[in-house]
């Protein structure tokens, strides 16, 4: 069943797959972010309670969802890397961690900016905010551990374990607003009921989310390519690739 995945254990195949996917992600990201954000920030109606302040949702929610989504992806890659000892999977972990950390930071930062005018405070130690902060620390832990070993095989193993274990935090973040009393409101779209947001506000949000996801995909794939090149620099196929690029430049 998983036969089609096998070739991508080879870094070369993954590199070329990334090369093929990158332009798609790039264009969809530009399209989604431009359409979603302009629609959301300029044309969507303002909220009955929060007025225009709610519009930060078009950045806050996509980044918060992706901070968790990237973590899930990273943990799956780490699990595959640990159990099947596939180098490409380990590289993907190292690639995704900084991207996820930035998304988490954006989510916390925009949340803080949103919290000040609406709630009346930049920060409060409620379960949702605290568990999201722990997610940021998990990302930083993975990054720090990966860079603290010179032997990248050892580094990947250590970082992979943190990444896999940290998965426990994901359901806590998601359900924090239901399990405990929090200042943060409940889920608006990630629930089984109908989303509790008017459709003319929901569409730009979904488009921004798709745009942000494609942007993340673009950045992750590009970073994965450079990580592959960096770690496989002495492989014949990389040398050949470099010569081709050099040759192409020479012809210009």
């Amino acid at each position, binding site marked *: 069943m998983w036969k089609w995945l096998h070739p991508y254990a080879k870094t070369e195949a993954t590199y070329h797959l990334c090369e093929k996917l990158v332009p798609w992600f790039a264009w969809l990201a530009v399209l989604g972010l431009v359409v979603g954000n302009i629609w959301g920030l300029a044309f969507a109606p303002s909220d009955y309670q*929060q007025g225009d302040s709610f519009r930060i949702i078009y950045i806050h929610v996509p980044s918060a969802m992706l901070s968790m989504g990237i973590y899930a992806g990273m943990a799956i890659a780490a699990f595959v890397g640990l159990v099947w000892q596939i180098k490409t999977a380990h590289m993907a972990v190292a690639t995704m961690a900084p991207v996820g950390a930035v998304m988490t930071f954006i989510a916390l930062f925009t949340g803080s900016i949103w919290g000040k005018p609406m709630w009346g405070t930049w920060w409060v130690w409620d379960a949702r905010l605290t568990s999201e902060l722990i997610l940021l620390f998990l990302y930083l832990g993975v990054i720090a551990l990966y860079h603290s070993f010179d032997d990248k095989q050892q580094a990947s193993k250590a970082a992979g374990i943190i990444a896999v*274990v940290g998965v426990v935090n994901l359901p806590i973040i998601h359900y924090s607003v239901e399990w405990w009393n929090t200042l943060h409101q409940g889920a608006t779209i990630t629930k089984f009921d109908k989303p509790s947001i008017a459709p003319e506000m929901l569409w730009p949000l979904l488009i921004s989310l798709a745009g942000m996801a494609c942007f993340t995909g673009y950045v992750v794939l590009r970073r994965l390519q450079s990580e592959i090149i960096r770690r496989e620099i002495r492989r014949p196929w990389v040398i050949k690739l470099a010569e081709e690029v050099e040759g192409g430049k020479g012809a210009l």
Partner: protein
Amino acid sequence: MNPRRKQRMTVVGSIIFLVGGAVALMLYALNQNIDLFLVPSEVINGKDGVIPQTGQRLRVGGMVVPGSVKRDDDSLDVTFDLTDTGPIVSVSYQGILPDLFREGQGIIITGVLEGANKVRAEEVLAKHDEEYMPAEMAEKVKGIKHVKPSGAGY
């Protein structure tokens, strides 16, 4: 699957399981401390059999009872009542209220319990729900007149 992979899978799986279990037990033990606030009925009837004592610092979260907001004309003093399912806690506060503060709104206050149901607040935070809709729709669906933040006049 070859035995070495199987073994690694078991090891990684049991690490996740053990850490997950440990975190779950920890959260269960800390359960009542993770709640950000007490609701008024917990302030008065107690939570898990513990009734807050006078002089205790606490956070209370509830709805502002319509018609209970009284402003002092000469100062920033304001008093209002909070409720959830019946019991009422009255709050006194000196300072500027957040923009979303209005009657019927969910509010969280931090303060000191001064009597059985009296709290002197040091901080007032406004909670908003997860529903977003334009003003016209709110009026049609929920019968709420649009009140611009800071336009409520408290």
